[in-house]
């Protein structure tokens, strides 16, 4: 498998890492110091980030991994995640989109007319609620292209912002892609380019982004994950991931689901 690497010209120790490991590391920094991180469906990279952070923090933050028995403390059924979020007891959640636009609107439903779509995605999952009530929602979309990052989404599963009188205790803080990290300015409803991942360029980000965004004159390179972080991901977290994401754990980390993980 091809491995990305930090540029030797940075003068650092050369550390080899996979794109998935870099994105998980970026997400770990975005999560920050919080009490409870929840991870929804189809989110193996955010799950890697949350579990690695918990390993590093000696059990902090709490992590609720949807679909898991071991990494999930809820005892009141699927609704508990949403009840918990509605009360403000979930600090961080992750959402993606078939389309994401420059105002932070996400589309998990379809492209074209809703009643006669050209493309259909799985559906909105919990986005039509969690985007409103989780303080830090981190958007992630591994495919960074004009097909996915669009001027305006076809269907709003959940809006990036709401009118003044709408109950809104949460919303987007950032967007992580295979090429870069954007921060989201909620007041202006606009993304700002924060850093470009090693091996990628600002020109390439502009070329592949369908919406306008702000950027500083000099855009930093996303820092590489540390050797310690990579060790935690590969040795401790990868076997934990295999319970919910066996295909991902095997493809990325070469870990097979152990019978004892059940």
């Amino acid at each position, binding site marked *: 498998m091809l491995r990305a690497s930090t540029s030797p010209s940075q003068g650092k120790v050369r550390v080899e890492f996979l794109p998935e490991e870099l994105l998980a590391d970026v997400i770990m920094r975005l999560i920050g110091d919080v009490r409870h991180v929840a991870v929804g*469906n*189809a989110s*193996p990279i955010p799950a890697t980030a949350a579990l690695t952070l918990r390993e590093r923090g000696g059990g902090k933050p709490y992590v609720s991994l*949807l*679909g*898991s*028995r071991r990494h999930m403390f*809820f*005892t*009141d*059924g*699927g*609704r508990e995640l*949403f009840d918990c979020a*509605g009360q403000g007891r979930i600090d961080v959640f992750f959402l993606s989109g078939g389309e994401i636009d420059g105002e932070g609107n996400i589309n*998990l*439903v*379809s492209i074209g007319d*809703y*009643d*006669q*779509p*050209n493309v*259909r*995605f*799985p*559906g*909105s*999952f*919990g*986005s*039509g*609620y*969690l*985007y*409103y*009530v989780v303080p830090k929602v981190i958007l992630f979309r591994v495919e960074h292209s004009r097909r996915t990052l669009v001027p305006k989404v076809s*269907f*709003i*599963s*959940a*809006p990036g912002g*709401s*009118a003044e*009188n*709408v*109950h809104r205790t949460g919303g987007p803080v950032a967007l992580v892609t295979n090429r870069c990290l954007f921060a989201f300015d909620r007041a202006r409803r606009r993304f700002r380019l924060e850093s470009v991942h090693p091996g990628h360029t600002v020109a390439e980000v502009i070329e592949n982004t369908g919406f306008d965004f702000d950027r500083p004159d000099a855009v930093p390179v996303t820092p590489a994950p540390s050797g310690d972080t990579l060790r935690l991901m590969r040795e401790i977290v990868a076997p934990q991931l295999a319970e919910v*994401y*066996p*295909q*991902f754990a095997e493809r990325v980390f070469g870990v097979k*689901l152990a019978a004892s993980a*059940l």
Partner: protein
Amino acid sequence: MPTIAPSVDDAVAAIPDGAMVVVPRESSGVPMEATRALIRRGIKRLSLVALPTSTLQADMLIGAGCVETLETSAVSLGEFGPAPRFTAAILGKTIAMKDATCPALYASIQAAEKGVPFIPLRGLIGSDILAHRPDWRVIDNPFGNNDPIVLLPAIKPDFALFHAGMADRAGNVFIGRDRELLTMAHAAAHTVATVEKLYDGNLMDDPALSAGTVPGFYVDTIAVAPRGAWPLPLLDHYPADGGHLAEYARLAATPEGFARYLDSYVYAKRAA
């Protein structure tokens, strides 16, 4: 008193064409053996409520022409990609879709559980989910000040259908932590459950078990179906059969391949 049916086919016989059936998400005990039995029987015009999402089960029922209306928050094959028959049905407009968001489904089912006509939910305002749900309403919070909030009508299914680890002969079903199964049974008029095995004794006699049990009071029919969630996982029992799911994803990509899949894994049993 609940009936212990002699077979899964017998257990689902009570579910008629046109019924509204609520089924759980992949990690909470999907009744796949019962689903194959329904397809074999050729059930039609189901109003399927997948609480709050579905994978293989909804895709197969849709592909086999059993579903008229689907209400859920998402259908995919998870790590195995998009759900091909669901996607084809939406693009071909062969089913009526009621797109929701997960907590809206949980809340609507809870409204039925409580016997109230509707329930409020945060979020949704400004979304196209709400814009395409004429059955949902926005009101001004009567206890607040300029605070719009969505109201959802109760969802009252005719049947709850799920798979669990075990049941006793009194019809009590052990569900452990998967308590949405309890909510489903409370909300639905009837409940049909398949289980891995029968439990000798009464689940209600052991406080450690009774707290995770659907009382037989809510249950109509039970059938024993070892590995009844296969090829999906039954948590605490067995993992998903990844090789089989990959084969399904490959075959179900075309109508012809899907028909071959049904012949091999669904209809073969009837012929045998």
